[in-house]
């Protein structure tokens, strides 16, 4: 007879193994970045690609440091962040308002579903000619693309969130004679919030992509335009330095939105840490 092997614990005890594991992961992550940078440095140096096409990372970082000392660089970042943030706020505001309003009136939702399903797959970049025609090359064009792209990401999540209400909680609220507003505030909103915030997180990433795209293609002021200008110049390292900047911006946006999500959802089971027994 074989001795029976006890099943492995499904949930690893967090307090015991968590800290060293996190430490190890961070180390591996840093090593990964270093290896990627080393490859980037070597590939042009050994001549796999012309350094005019892909300058080594050391010269890109040198140019980046030089740019970071200029006001124009930070202005461009500010313009991109402004278009991103304003666009995301407008998209979130519109999507949440509309999503809640429609979801609570099922008949209207049935009317709009077909239109939504038609509009949603239209890529935001396909609206570039329209944006130029209506808003020219300014902030308005950026906002149109950003809002359009981010809106659907959030809107769909809002609809899903509102549809996911726990019926017991809802009926309990009804039996306690909560007002319509009270039900929205105390039942619908908290149970939809994780969905909404997932939508905002997805929307934030898409919004940044579209903000930079609008600047690059239309010429709205910001990092994208700086890349376009650098591209028609004669310093390839500057183009890469600016592209690197958009990448860092993307990482910061993602980290920031995730932190905000964790804060707002402290109470939720997906974030709350179980106390080890």
């Amino acid at each position, binding site marked *: 007879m074989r001795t029976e092997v006890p099943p492995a614990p499904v949930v690893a005890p967090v307090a015991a193994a968590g800290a060293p594991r996190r430490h190890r992961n961070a180390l591996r992550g840093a090593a990964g970045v270093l290896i990627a940078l080393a490859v980037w440095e070597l590939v042009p140096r050994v001549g796999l690609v012309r350094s005019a*096409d892909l300058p080594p990372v050391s010269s890109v970082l040198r140019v980046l440091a030089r740019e970071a000392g200029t006001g124009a660089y930070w202005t461009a970042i500010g313009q991109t962040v402004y278009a991103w943030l304003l666009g995301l706020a407008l998209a979130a*505001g519109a999507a949440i*308002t509309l999503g809640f309003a429609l979801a609570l009136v099922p008949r209207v939702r049935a009317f709009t579903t077909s239109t939504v399903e038609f509009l949603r797959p239209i890529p935001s970049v396909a609206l570039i000619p329209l944006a130029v025609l209506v808003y020219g090359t300014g902030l308005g064009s950026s906002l149109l693309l950003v809002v359009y792209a981010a809106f659907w990401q959030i809107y769909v999540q809002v609809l899903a969130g509102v549809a996911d209400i726990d019926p017991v909680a809802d009926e309990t609220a009804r039996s306690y004679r909560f007002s319509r507003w009270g039900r929205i*505030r105390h039942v619908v909103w908290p149970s939809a919030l994780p969905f909404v915030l997932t939508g905002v997180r997805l929307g934030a990433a898409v919004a940044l992509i579209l903000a930079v795209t609008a600047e690059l293609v239309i010429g709205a002021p910001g990092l994208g335009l700086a890349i376009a*200008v650098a591209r028609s*110049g*004669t310093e390839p390292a500057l183009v890469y330095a600016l592209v690197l900047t958009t990448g860092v911006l993307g990482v910061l946006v993602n980290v920031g939105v995730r932190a905000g999500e964790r804060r707002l959802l402290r109470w939720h089971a997906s974030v709350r840490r179980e106390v080890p027994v």
Partner: protein
Amino acid sequence: MRRALASIVAATVALAVVGCGGSGSDVKTEGGNAQLTVGVIPIVDVAPIYLGQQKGFFTKRKIDLTLKTAAGGAAIVPSVMSGEFQVGFSNFTSLLLAREKGLPLKVIANGVSSTGEQGKDFGAIVVPAGSPARTAKDLVGKRIAVNTLKNICDSTVKASVRKAGGDTSGLNLVELPFPDMPAALAANRVDGACIVEPQLSQVVAAGGRVLTSMYVDAAPNLSVAGYFVNEKLLKSDRDLVDRFTEAIKESNAYADAHPDEVRQVLSSYTKITADLAPKLTLPKWPAEINKDSVATLGKLATDDKVLTQAPDLNALYAD
């Protein structure tokens, strides 16, 4: 929560209101000076307007300039039509195309011209190092990069090939933005390119060879690009347009006479590095448009079926 909602609604309404305005072509005045926004491309060609702005050629004619760089020429025409820019910069083939589509634009001043010297122009057909091509005729059947199909490069490259005795029906033109051309040539992804400064100097520095100057082949002293306005502005404020034209003429003359200052001003609006700026072949900036050369461009475009009918050239100009 309620306050947040209210501010979101307010912001949405504000955006909608902002979106509705801003399509008028009225020129604002501040301190007696007309406020003009000019849409330009960040290339060597528009150096005179930056110089003229620095030298006060516009302010002394009661014009305050705001120069806005568009990522490409494609965004400038609609922005001048919508009134966001009062003046735009574009090449003459594009302007003829826009007129044919019925857009109410008028050319008011010369923008940039070819030097007229074969082999020493700011634009050229280049081939990579080691290419067997000797004349434009040898390009037939090869992949030639142009920045935009059915535009000025397209027309003038065909003019060069015809002039060298080649048959243009065998040309294989591919679209590629100017900044991507040096890399494409170096990797032999294209066999030749219709290219302008500063990429022209980059290609030559990397061992590429100038085959011919297509603008020189197309017409003597070709006017390549011009400044244009919406017809509405011309009707509502002819005096302002005339002042702008005078200021541009003075700027062009100054730029032509001071190439060193042109090379310096480049660093204020382009990212051309200081080591390359002194090596660039600068274009010419004559005061007047060479209308015969624009007529030739029109004929080339009509022959190549880029324009569907011969353009009405008199309607193109403001005067």
